[in-house]
């Protein structure tokens, strides 16, 4: 049996722009080489400006996203405010490390804007919660190698929201086209201070 991280397939990427961030994922759910569904989004929202992308084993993607919905709801009731992306990242990290010896088979990506300063924030994790802070971009999923290549060549500092959308979309679509386990369209979120834009991309359907 192959690794739990690559049974279902999927890819996710987050990028920093000028006063904005973007996060995007593909839509495939597969069983090894067989595609079961082409509408399985991997990005979840946990506040006005807090987004989580989860790739890996599909069952854990659902379980972990539900778990964080519960934890973030409890946080919001207790604190009477929305969770900040940096706080959320630490919540993700500690929640994943709780399962140190029987981990959730997911590679999360957090993207958001700091509530006070409006500064972009992105980070990634391994499956046991080691945080990887980044100033530029974070990639995860079965198309990681391809995404690294695309992001290294396309990304540049201080991209505006529209340029950032173009960059992240091109990076994701061209990466997943070289990966058999991900693709089938994409969701792209562009997060700005006063608006969040969600776009559905139609990719190659093969």
């Amino acid at each position, binding site marked *: *049996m192959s690794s*739990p991280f690559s049974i279902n397939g999927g890819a996710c990427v987050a990028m920093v722009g000028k006063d904005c961030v973007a996060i995007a994922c593909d839509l495939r*759910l597969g069983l090894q080489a*067989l595609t079961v569904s082409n509408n*399985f989004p991997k990005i979840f929202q946990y506040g006005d400006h807090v987004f989580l992308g989860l790739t890996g084993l599909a069952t854990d993607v*659902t*379980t972990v996203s539900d778990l964080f919905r519960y934890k973030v709801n409890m946080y919001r009731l207790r604190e009477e405010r929305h969770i900040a992306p940096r706080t959320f990242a630490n919540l993700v990290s500690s929640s994943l490390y709780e399962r140190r*010896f*029987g981990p959730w088979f997911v590679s999360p990506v957090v993207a958001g804007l700091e509530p006070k300063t409006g500064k972009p924030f992105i980070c990634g994790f391994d499956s046991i919660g080691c945080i990887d802070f980044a100033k530029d971009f974070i990639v995860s999923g079965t198309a990681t190698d391809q995404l690294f290549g695309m992001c290294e060549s396309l990304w540049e500092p201080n991209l505006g929201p529209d340029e950032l959308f173009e960059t992240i979309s091109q990076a994701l679509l061209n990466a997943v086209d070289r990966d058999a386990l991900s693709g089938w369209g994409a969701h792209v979120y562009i997060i700005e201070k006063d608006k969040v834009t969600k776009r559905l991309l139609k990719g190659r359907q093969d």
Partner: protein
Amino acid sequence: MPSRCVRVAAACWSSNNADERPTCWKLKHNTRKLAIVPTNLLHNNNNRRTQLPTQPQPKCMEVLLGITGKDFTLIAASKAAMRGPTILKATDDKTRQLNDHTLLAFSGEPGDTVQFAEYIQANSQLYSMRNETELSPSALAHFVRGELASSLRSRNPYSVNLLLGGVDPITNKPSLYWLDYLASLAKVPYAAHGYAQYYCLSLLDKHHHPNITLDEGMKLLRLCSDELKRRLPIDFKGLVVKAVTKDGIETKPFDEDEKVVKDT
């Protein structure tokens, strides 16, 4: 870093033979007694998972099919109850009715399947009695997923593949949920489990349309059933077909005495 080992070895050696000190500081293999801990007491070493709890993948020869249409969901399941190469029963029903408008079809490890499906059935009926209202197919699908997901990380997980089809009692929208033994949940327009996936999904990709009528749905099932009979190496004894509509669940007559399609 030899010094530490040598010193330990020497200490053990000298305690055994106090009068005779070694002239050469050489580590002897049998000088130090090893504390051997029984492996079952070793903390966690067996539980460190780099993989999921490996369990036999549920049986693939059983056929489960599901199709949604304009106002209905069709569920079909093979009638053969198999044990190894033997067919024990040719009139098996691999479905359970959860409530008036939701049907669960299952395949996988014998024993697990019926046990799990009837557990879900009982809980769904309990909910209906307590609240005098019925759970929607979506709510039930998420409940089933929750149960299966918590079972997956337990000592002995259920290895069951499921299809859950229903019609929402309020919106009258048909829906179909695909769940595998890892508790991956997907809402799909049409689905299959086991080897049937490889034969039927491509057929359904080509011929399915969200607005098909019940008759067209039955024709699609016939198409799938013919292909399975033509290509699967064993006889799965035909299909039980059930249609879920807003009026309830109905068993549909399906090729009772039709011969196996021989010609390719």
